[in-house]
């Protein structure tokens, strides 16, 4: 029997949804505080899948908790799970990303944080250590916060080369390492930055999300703060693939789990009107690496639809056919069990959705 799990991080706590057929779902509120859950992770590499959730309380600050019983109970270590070392003079604001590592490194979990930094866990996401190499990059001092804060929101370990990794920072841009994190270089050539004068900068672009298919790790897709891009050479050069979309502004970028060259986005009108175009809910998908785009809206609201979808509020479950999910700032979650061809409302009246992750549990 196949079981599907969807973790939904919201402005007021975490919810889990489970299903055996991706038609009917059982939704439960996780027994965590009513805090902002910016990042969720489902680590299926373990014998017992582990859920990870970051939380942020306006009063009590940030934390990361994990659950080994599919969200029924949660543990937080006695010592802070993510802590900036004293020598940085900085303090953790939020954890924006919790990314399980490569298959061959089952205890490694990555965390992307605010202020912009990368942390590595070697105990399955219980405790994390700062990756010094990126923190010490001389350009970091010139990164500036986007509207949500100076967040490292995307962590893409190369699927086979343990020395290579791509991260993305708003607003710093895309950075890559080829030596296991010791040194990092900006990787933004071809990406414009409309919010600053002058020529295209080496770094400082406002990237919102980057996606990669593990079978084609040199092909990267980026949704930027104005601009949708693809790189075919591992990030050395980017080119626009925005033609055919109603807008080049948006937040999420999700790779199809089985077909390289297929990604999903949710375009918004623009920087100063962050609502979907034509007041309609439409996911856009490309099957040809951005040469063309198809609007997917069957079953989605076709009028009077205003909420945005945040950068981590769209995901795939990895199933066959692929399930695709997105949550809105109005507290709805929409699901497709057929790769986006048709949709239905999985949940409504939740707090605004900040993050979703889904998995198939055998």
């Amino acid at each position, binding site marked *: 029997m196949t079981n599907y799990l969807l973790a939904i991080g919201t402005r007021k706590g975490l919810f889990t949804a489970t299903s055996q057929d991706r038609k009917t779902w059982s939704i439960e509120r996780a027994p965590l*505080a009513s805090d902002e859950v910016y990042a969720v992770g489902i680590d299926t590499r373990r014998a017992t899948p582990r859920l990870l959730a970051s939380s942020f*309380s*306006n*009063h*009590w600050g940030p934390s990361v908790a994990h659950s080994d019983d599919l969200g029924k109970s949660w543990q937080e270590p*006695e010592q802070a799970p993510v*802590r900036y070392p004293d020598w940085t*003079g*900085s*303090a953790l604001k939020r954890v924006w990303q919790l990314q399980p590592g490569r298959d061959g490194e089952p205890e490694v979990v990555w965390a992307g944080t605010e202020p912009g930094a990368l942390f590595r866990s070697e105990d399955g996401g219980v405790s994390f250590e700062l990756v010094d190499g990126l923190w010490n990059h001389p350009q970091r001092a010139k990164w500036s916060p986007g509207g949500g804060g100076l967040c490292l929101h995307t962590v893409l370990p190369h699927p086979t080369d343990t020395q290579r990794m791509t991260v993305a920072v708003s607003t710093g841009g895309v950075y890559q390492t080829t030596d296991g994190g010791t040194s990092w270089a900006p990787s933004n050539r071809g990406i414009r930055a409309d919010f600053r004068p002058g020529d295209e900068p080496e770094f400082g672009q406002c990237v919102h999300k980057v996606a990669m298919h593990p079978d084609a790790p040199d092909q990267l897709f980026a949704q930027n703060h104005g601009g949708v891009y693809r790189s075919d050479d591992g990030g050395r050069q980017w080119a626009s693939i925005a033609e055919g979309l109603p807008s080049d502004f948006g937040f999420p970028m999700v790779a199809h789990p089985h077909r390289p060259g297929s990604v999903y986005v949710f375009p918004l009108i623009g920087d100063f009107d962050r609502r979907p175009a034509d007041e309609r809910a439409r996911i856009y998908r490309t099957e040809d690496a951005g040469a063309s785009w198809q609007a997917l809206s069957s079953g989605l609201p076709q009028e009077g639809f205003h909420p945005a979808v945040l950068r981590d509020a769209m995901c795939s479950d990895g199933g066959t056919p692929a399930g695709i999910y997105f949550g809105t700032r109005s507290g709805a979650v929409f699901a497709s069990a057929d790769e986006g061809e048709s949709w239905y409302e999985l949940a409504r009246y939740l707090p605004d959705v900040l993050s979703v992750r889904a998995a198939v549990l055998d």
Partner: protein
Amino acid sequence: MGQVTVRVPGALREFAGGDRLVVVDVPAGEPPSVSAVLDQLSDSHPALERRIRDETGALREHVNVFVGSNNVRDLERLATVIPAGAELIVLPAVSGG
């Protein structure tokens, strides 16, 4: 060895073993500062203390700490000295919610 009582708000009692009060040992002699008490609390109840101060030692923006009835932000902040017999009271600020 002296002692200072820390009064824990309801939202944080799960990090104090469910207790409303946590008694912190402090060196005998000079009255301790708020920082010194929180340093001790960091050793005995780290998950509680990090919800009051961040890892740089700064008091979290929307947490108020009182010595008796006085907000330490109106005194010497974390350097405020706690007189003998006074309690340290931690409360969430209304600005945070």
